[in-house]
């Protein structure tokens, strides 16, 4: 059973806050994690449709989390968008090899984030949209 909640994972509090704010304002329900361990636990517990996953994090990085999620049949269907400040081709290849569905490079535009969320999760259910 998949949840329409979007999981946002980043160890940079400001980036986490910006992503969460934009997605909430667009009516998506979000949950956040600040490291790899937390992210894995959250993914296993709620099986979100979509995860925005930062790569460079302490303890377990985004590549490792992605690999583990995709290797487990119970969570393999979770759509993962890797977020990273490193734009080098080698990293992109490594992300795709780890099974990531998409790759977004920082700095990213909030509009782009919203567009991706709508593609994967669809439009938020009526009544969830928060007022301004």
């Amino acid at each position, binding site marked *: 059973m998949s949840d329409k909640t979007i999981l946002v994972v980043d160890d*940079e509090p*400001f980036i986490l806050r910006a992503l969460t704010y934009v997605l909430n304002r667009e009516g998506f329900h979000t949950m956040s994690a600040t490291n790899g361990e937390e992210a894995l636990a959250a993914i296993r517990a709620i099986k979100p449709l979509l995860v925005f996953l930062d790569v460079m994090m302490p303890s377990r990085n985004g590549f490792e989390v992605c690999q583990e999620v995709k290797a487990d049949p119970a969570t393999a269907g979770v759509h993962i968008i890797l977020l990273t*400040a490193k734009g*080098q081709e080698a990293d992109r290849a490594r992300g795709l090899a780890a099974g990531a569905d998409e790759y977004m490079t*920082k*700095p990213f*535009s*909030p*509009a782009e984030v919203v567009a991706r969320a709508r593609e994967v999760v669809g439009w938020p259910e009526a009544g969830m949209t928060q007022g301004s």
Partner: protein
Amino acid sequence: MLDLLLVLAAAALLATWAHAARRVRRVSAGLDLLREGVRSLARGDAPREVPSAGGRDLDALTREFNQMAAGVRQRQHDLERSREETDRLLNQLISSREHHLATLEEKVRERTSDLHKAYEELKKLDEMKDSFLSSVSHELRTPLSSIRSFSEILLTYNADEATRRDFLGIINQESERLTRLINDVLDLAKIEAGRMEWHIAPISLAQLCDAALAPLHVLARKKGQRLVVDVPAELPLVLADRDRLIQVFGNLIANAVKFTGEGGSIHVGAGLVEAPPGAQETDMVRVEIRDNGIGIPGGDVKLIFEKFKQVGDTLTGKPTGTGLGLPISRDIIRQLGGALWCESAPGEGSRFQFTLRIATPERTPDQAGVMPQGAVEEQMVPACAPPRQETAFAVRGRRRLVGVADDDAGTVGVLRELLSLRGYEVLTAADGVEAIEIARGNELELMILDLNMPRKSGWRVLEELRSEAQTKDLPVIVLTGMEAEMDRARALALGAVEFLEKGRGLERLTAEIDLLVQGSV
């Protein structure tokens, strides 16, 4: 009778025939021997002498044959010897060739291993460069991401005033972080590429600490800490670049504040380094910045000087600096001819120390200093030749006369004010010609000289002052509206002791004047 005759004749015939037959047999046997000899020669057997067996008739022939056979034997022998000689030479050649090949192979092996080592080193350097680039990229993009996201959010969504202010605060904070980072990366790149411009001058540490540590006192107070500065004013002047030295103090003290809890204290001290064994007196000053904060685990003491290696803040656990402050500080101190090191233990605070060279008139700027005791794994890197020469300031007249040459009345007024406050008498000149006159006619202690003046430019004045015996030692501070490195170099080459930009603050000018005068007493 006839019968007898016949018998006799027959007997004689028989005897003759028998004799002839014997001769024929003998000749035939001799010929056989000769034939055998010829065949044997033809077969290439070792030639033997053929015995004479054919009687007189064949003897001559046999002799001839034997002579010929002996000749053949000799030639064969010669041939044999020359073949042996050839073989020997050939073998020699082959063995020398083999030896040569073996050496060559050995050389190739050595070269290959050298190349392999060089390749590995290059690869390591390349990896270091990659990891540095990757870190820079990450560190730059992270604040940029926040700035971009929050500015776009503010443009896209209506938010209440408190949220707007909050987001603007984040944008502001992250812009500052980005600025710091860019400055640090540029500084580091410049220092490491040898492109940093160094303005090395004699500096009083006590004065510098007074002026430069004010903002850091505020920083410490914000965390409820005490910043105690105990730098004796009577310490000798050190050779340093003022702005860079302030940067080092800033980095080290900000670090100490960051890793020390509320109510902690940070102590800044300085003293002479003990003279190295055998030397009469020391030529280094040691500065120390000590805190009673959380300290650094043994293994991490080395790490903190690596680029982008950061440990968390005491309060947030998140790194707040750029991770470049310590590598930059170490680079700066090394360039100044000193060393920077750290001693620390968890829970016992940290003690950062660095050394600087003492300014002495005879010291040339590119002389390397002496390693301080206890500076392990530090290496003295000779400074890239600082651009200026120091001058020994001679004691001049008792009246403290300073000449000020500038066509701008405003500047002259301010300088006169500042100098009179310090007890100097001021003589002014409104152009280059007057400047020369006041320098010739008075025992000036110092002249402050503008470059752009009517009648005679500051450059000309400087040249003329230097060419005359009476004024050639007069310390001159060159003032200019616009600081350009070319002009600075030219002015210093012409013997100016300092080159100052007018807009850059009179504080620096007066500090410089104080230093010059101190140096002369």
